[in-house]
């Protein structure tokens, strides 16, 4: 009846069909989310933008994603992944078309800001894939979903410049190129609604238990958890400040204050959710068997901050970086070179998981983070005098460590507290976005090479943190040479 291993070509299996449907939905969200990055010079030219304004645009793109994750999570609880993914694709398709037809920088910024919502699509598919695959396949299935979906940013960098310049022609080519991704997402949203199903036919439901926030198991951890939520809002506040008259001047004083207000309300809302989930624990304490250390979660959060966060940030600026550093590159070529970074997703993420299983979890993660620190250090040294090929190789090596690091983080997530895997994964993912906003906000202040150095420096800090992580327990059984399943004695 069911296959032991994942056979991706077996379209007769509803679960495989669902996986393909879902990863492609995620892929499209990523295409839309990063469709602007490889078209930088065209867009800047059309609106006669300053570099400052462009960097603000990049940051705006990831800002809304942080609160959007919370909202999407609630919507998925209420309406199920099928409806929410279709809705997200339809809406973001429309916003994307609006972005493509923007007539002023203000409109452009507004629609980019709204497109931040599309970055929260990841959460929806994770839920869907989780429902469709048994435990032995779900890790691989979610790896494919995440990896192939993330590849969408590479696809955008790879194809959109050619599409804009060659197919549609120069003048408004970028508008048509971006607009066509919006149309594609819109149409796919309709297809998704008709083809996808929330759960396998006839699967049994149990009422979901607590949701809305992470359950922690001691008062100390509760404080720790609250503190860990603050950076998300602080960085958004910094971004709002940057956009205020004190910074780029995109927002008026009133709007800026309104933003601060919205952030406070959001924070209060999240606080109430966290309190709701943990009220019993705070009153009565957590049962002994249920205890886990929040420290582990926090460390993984920061590890994802520096890995996935830097990936999102770098993917947004890399095509332009190539174009500006090396003379004589066409826009399409720069886009393709820039996509080299995200290309590694296909192999790097799974390798990270594999390393982690094979060589110990803390060890693997440490090595990968050192690797990415060195990688970014190297990137900061790239100048016009480098051969382009060498620069591309450096980028690919660096991105291998970054994405393998992401894989290693998610190989540890389910081992912290099995019951709460979803919640821990959600918070870790959110920190990836915090990383993106942080790095891109920093990018608005500094030069490209300092930007890379900054990421390398944060990686070193995270390396130190990872040393405080406790090696999670792995398997409790093994199979001997005769095929007998035996318990491993844990001393």
């Amino acid at each position: 009846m069911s296959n032991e291993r994942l056979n991706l070509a077996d379209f007769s299996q509803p679960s495989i069909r669902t996986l393909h449907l879902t990863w492609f939905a995620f892929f499209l969200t990523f295409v839309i989310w990063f469709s602007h990055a490889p078209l930088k010079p065209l867009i800047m030219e059309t609106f006669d933008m300053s570099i400052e304004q462009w960097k603000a645009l990049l940051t705006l793109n990831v800002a809304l994603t942080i609160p959007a994750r919370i909202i999407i999570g609630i919507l998925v609880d209420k309406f199920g992944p099928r409806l929410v993914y279709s809705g997200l694709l339809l809406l973001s398709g429309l916003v994307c078309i609006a972005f493509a037809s923007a007539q002023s920088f203000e409109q452009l910024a507004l629609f980019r800001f709204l497109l931040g919502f599309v970055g929260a699509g990841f959460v929806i598919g994770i839920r869907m894939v989780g429902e469709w695959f048994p435990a032995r396949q779900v890790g691989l299935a979610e790896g494919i979903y995440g990896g192939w979906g993330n590849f969408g940013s590479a696809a955008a960098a790879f194809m959109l410049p050619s599409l804009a310049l060659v197919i549609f022609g120069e003048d408004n080519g970028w508008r048509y190129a971006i607009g066509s991704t919006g149309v594609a997402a819109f149409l796919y949203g309709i297809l998704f609604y008709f083809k996808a199903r929330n759960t396998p036919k006839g699967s049994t439901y149990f009422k979901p238990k607590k949701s809305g926030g992470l359950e922690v198991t001691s008062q100390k951890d509760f404080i720790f958890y609250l503190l860990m939520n603050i950076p998300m809002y602080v960085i958004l506040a910094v971004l709002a400040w940057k956009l205020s008259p004190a910074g780029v001047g995109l927002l008026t004083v009133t709007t800026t204050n309104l933003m601060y207000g919205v952030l406070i309300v959001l924070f209060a809302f999240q606080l109430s959710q966290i309190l709701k989930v943990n009220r019993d624990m705070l009153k009565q304490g957590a049962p002994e068997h249920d205890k886990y250390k929040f420290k582990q979660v926090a460390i993984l959060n920061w590890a994802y901050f520096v890995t996935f966060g830097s990936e999102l940030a770098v993917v947004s600026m890399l095509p332009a970086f190539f174009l500006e550093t090396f003379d004589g590159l066409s826009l399409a070529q720069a886009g393709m070179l820039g996509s080299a970074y995200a290309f590694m997703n296909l192999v790097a993420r799974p390798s990270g998981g594999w390393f982690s299983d094979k060589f110990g979890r803390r060890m693997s993660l440490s090595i990968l983070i050192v690797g990415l620190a060195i990688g970014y250090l190297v990137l900061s040294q790239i100048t016009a005098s480098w051969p382009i090929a060498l620069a591309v190789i450096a980028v690919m090596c660096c991105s291998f460590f970054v994405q393998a690091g992401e894989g290693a983080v998610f190989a540890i997530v389910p081992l912290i507290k099995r019951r709460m895997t979803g919640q821990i994964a959600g918070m870790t993912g959110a920190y990836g976005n915090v990383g993106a906003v942080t790095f891109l906000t920093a990018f608005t202040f500094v030069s490209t090479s300092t930007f890379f150095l900054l990421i390398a420096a944060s990686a070193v800090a995270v390396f130190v943190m990872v040393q405080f992580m406790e090696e999670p327990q792995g398997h409790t059984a093994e199979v001997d040479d005769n095929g007998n399943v035996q318990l491993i004695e844990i001393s």
Partner: protein
Amino acid sequence: MGIEHLQSTLDVEIHQLSDAGRKEENQDAIGARVPDGSLLAAKGFALVIADGVSAAEAAREASQASVTGFLTDYFSTPDTWSVKRSALKVMQSLNRWLYGQGQSHIQGRGFLTTFSALIIKSNTVHIFHVGDSRIYRFRHQQLELLTTDHTRHLSKKQFYLSRAMGADATLDIDYRCLDLQAGDCFLLTTDGIHDVLPNRMLHQSLSELPRSDIPQYLINKALDAGSSDNLSCQIAYIPQLQSVSDQEAFKALSELPFPPDLDVGNRLDGYEVIRLLHASERSQLYLVKDVNGRRWAMKTPSVNYQDDPAYIERFVLEEWIASRMRSTNIVRAITPVQRQFLYYLTEYIPGQTLEQVIHERSPLDVKDAIAITEQTAKALRALHQKETLHQDIKPANIIISKQGAVLIDFGSCLVAGIEEISAPFQRDSALGTAEYSAPEYRYQGPRSERSDQFSLAVITYEMMTGHHPYGAGYTKAKSLSDFIKLNYQSATHHNPLVPLWLDGALNKALSIKPEHRYEVLSEFLFDLKQPNPNFNRINQSSLLDRNPLRFWQSLAAIQVLIILALIYFLID
């Protein structure tokens, strides 16, 4: 595996004494039983007091037989049963026996007795009562009488018992259910004591004397006060609530580790994996063979739930339930010789699931569909007799084998006897499967055997038509009003071979409101096989019944026309 995780060590102090007093014969009977281990968890402990009615000649036999009979039989009832059902069943049969004894005796000796039982299970007190013995509760220095004397006064001095065990073939039993608090003390007495001693004295002894002295003290005081009857008194004191600490429960539940993913050829406790039959987000099912080459099905839990006690409890109970059901239509559970890991074994039933059968052959022959319904209903009745709701009847859980339909999954069952035991973790509440579970699961109505009846009827309908009786909208409905808006689509409409009367039976079993369905499953089965004349008139039922909305709309439309016509003619 079973309910070990719900066991607790019980702290209870019981003192009891019965005395003939000034009478020659002691016609009172008292008894208490505190079982061990899982029986205590499943059934609780019991105190029983009975006072043979002295006007009856076999008073002593009657009271003794009731007390010993109850204490034996109550603890032999299925452990899936609730306390209420168990005790009432046992009392009813004792009553019939006593009544029968009285009837058959040549001189017509009466076997009459009062009967009061106190059962404490988990943290709930259950009281069963007939006659004028009494149960009091002493809590926070307050004495409260929990029972009502079943007596009728003829005059101030004269009164007689209006209810007693053995008086009639049918018996009305008072039942009360109360919560238990730490420090509660219960006092059971016969009228030899409470008729002569004022409440004040009972209160005083309970609050001042050491508990072990109270029975003797009260009996002496009653004798001093001139009691001429037999005197019996029982005391049960519960210093603390029974609580299985979450740690103990989890330890018991997680004693066995989850097995890893198994590959073909792997051996677990000597069982070799032949192939994976099915894997879902919640569990894996393997076909395995033992050393003798016999084939079994092995179900293993999904590592997704490794630290979820509610899931593990459900998993463990699945085997516990399967091993308690005897029916050819229910899969049999096997206990493995040794068990190093958490899994359970059942007989392997070769055959397709009903889901596959429907997929390949729907619509099924009406006769076959009825046969499968009947076999599944047999399995359901076996469950219902054990006060267990299946809650997830669906085609994927039914295997069509040579011996007919066999029910294979018990992962969502609601067992009355288990629900009564409080667990130190939040239990899962099953919502079943959207297409097949009855509406009350989603609008949070009360669940009953009729909920399983609904699911069974959905399957019967699907077998005959290949469709859902309420169409695709059924899975989206959430509230009762959503469900009421849905329209039942006649099975005859999809499959003309389904007779009208059969469609009528399906329609009734598929009623949105449980009270409109069949009272018992057998009536449904009867109507599936015998044309019910009521259902042949279904087409003649008025539009008001079939589609009230359309009826009122049409009525309003006609009115509008009449008004318009009137206006037209009058204005002219």
